[in-house]
């Protein structure tokens, strides 16, 4: 069994800096995240944005992000859990979801990173990334997750958290008429349901 007090004596756990719960208090951990250039600094988070980052695929600028009670949002964790019905804390960060994702190369953050940020409820770090908007709900990740998490549902929850504030990700009125004429109806029904409020 993993004991939080034994964290520093287990070198491999440094690669798994998941907040281990001890009673009601979150154990401290340190994790590095690439921070997108558009991201607003989390209130209370001691972050310095040092440069532009257009695509974490090409260039990663790692920031040290202290994981403590100020940065972690219990409310957001609960929101994601309630909407998705999934327990993101089961995620052990193996990255199978990223490996299986057909859209990963177009994403700002890979699904694994989004799962990790979701574990801490760091919605403010995720508000400007395109990962959950690029998710095509193909369930490639969900069927392969060794922890049985339906990641497509987590992505849906992140989308809905934005859409339910009456924001559209795409504007149907701006779609070219030619495209509407030739596109199958299921594309529009599905797309509007996933990308508009």
């Amino acid at each position, binding site marked *: 069994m993993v004991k939080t007090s034994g964290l520093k004596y287990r070198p491999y756990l440094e690669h798994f800096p998941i907040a281990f719960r001890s009673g009601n208090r979150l154990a401290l951990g340190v994790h590095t995240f690439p921070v997108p250039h558009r991201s607003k600094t989390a209130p209370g988070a001691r972050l310095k944005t040092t440069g532009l980052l257009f695509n974490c695929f090409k260039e990663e600028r790692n920031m040290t992000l202290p994981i403590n009670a100020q940065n972690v949002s219990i409310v957001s964790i609960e929101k994601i859990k309630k909407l998705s019905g999934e327990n993101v804390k089961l995620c052990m960060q193996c990255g199978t979801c990223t490996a299986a994702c057909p*859209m990963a190369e177009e994403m700002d953050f890979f699904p694994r990173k989004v799962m990790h940020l979701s574990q801490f409820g760091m919605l403010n770090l995720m508000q400007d990334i395109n990962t959950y908007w690029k998710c095509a709900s*193909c369930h490639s990740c969900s069927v392969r997750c060794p922890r049985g998490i339906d990641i497509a549902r987590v992505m849906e929850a992140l989308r809905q958290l934005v859409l339910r504030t009456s924001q559209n990700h795409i504007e149907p009125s701006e779609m070219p008429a030619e495209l509407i004429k030739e596109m*199958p*109806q*299921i*594309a529009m*029904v599905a797309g509007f*349901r996933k990308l508009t409020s």
Partner: protein
Amino acid sequence: MKISYYPGCTLKLKAKNLELAALASLQEMGIDVEEMDRWNCCGAVYSLTDDDLIHHVGPVRNLVRAKERGADKLVTLCSMCYNTLARANQLMKTDTVKRDTINRFMDDEIDYLGEVEVIHFLTLLEEQVGWDKIREMVKKPLTGLKVAPYYGCTLQRPADVGIEPMGNFTLMTNLLEAIGATVVPFNAADKCCGSYQVLNTAAGDNEAAANVINSAATAGVEALATSCPLCEYNLGKQQDLFLEKGKITAGVPTFYFTQLLAMALGVNPEVCHFEMNDAKAVQLLEAKNLQAAV
């Protein structure tokens, strides 16, 4: 056994070729299905949020219609309709709390408890006809045509509604072999084509679809067989744009599997509406002497 047929919105207009070829084949094989009356949109995607029940009402109402007509099975052709209806059915079967809420909400309808079984057209062919019988009925075998089955996402995922386990493509492989085609396996048969993300990307920038076409071309596939109008759009109709942008090196024509079946069964080619496919599809058929000018 009574089988109801749910066409879905796209099959009546932009994927007419998928439906007409399927119905003509069924007639040729002597299978009787009845199109449901008063069907409505299934919603195209299954609602994934836990607190959102209103979007299940659409698919469940269709299932109620099928139950009212005394159908044991509901057959669909479109992969997205299949997925949405089958998952809604699964929900009504297993989640008693949500089922009660949905049934109470639709108080003008009869209660639905998951009685109807949702099946895909491929399953119907296997159960009601059988591959050996199809092989006997073939009039114009598609000899020499190298086809790959392309399932996409919604036919196989998630596992509890998949028409067969992940990684197996036996249903469509058996069908294609029965109609005389050479089946070429390729490694992107269950990869996503990008689905509705076509709305969210610039024209011709759909990497996921381009990747599928590239793996098919590398494996030596001459034609892809699919059952989803959105896959057909993303893979087939976007190929010229991909070629322009240099995302693919060679095009791979896409067909609906029902078109290939109907052609092999000797159905009038006008019914199959090959002109609605990509222009390359017609060229391929002419090159293979499978179909005179359509």
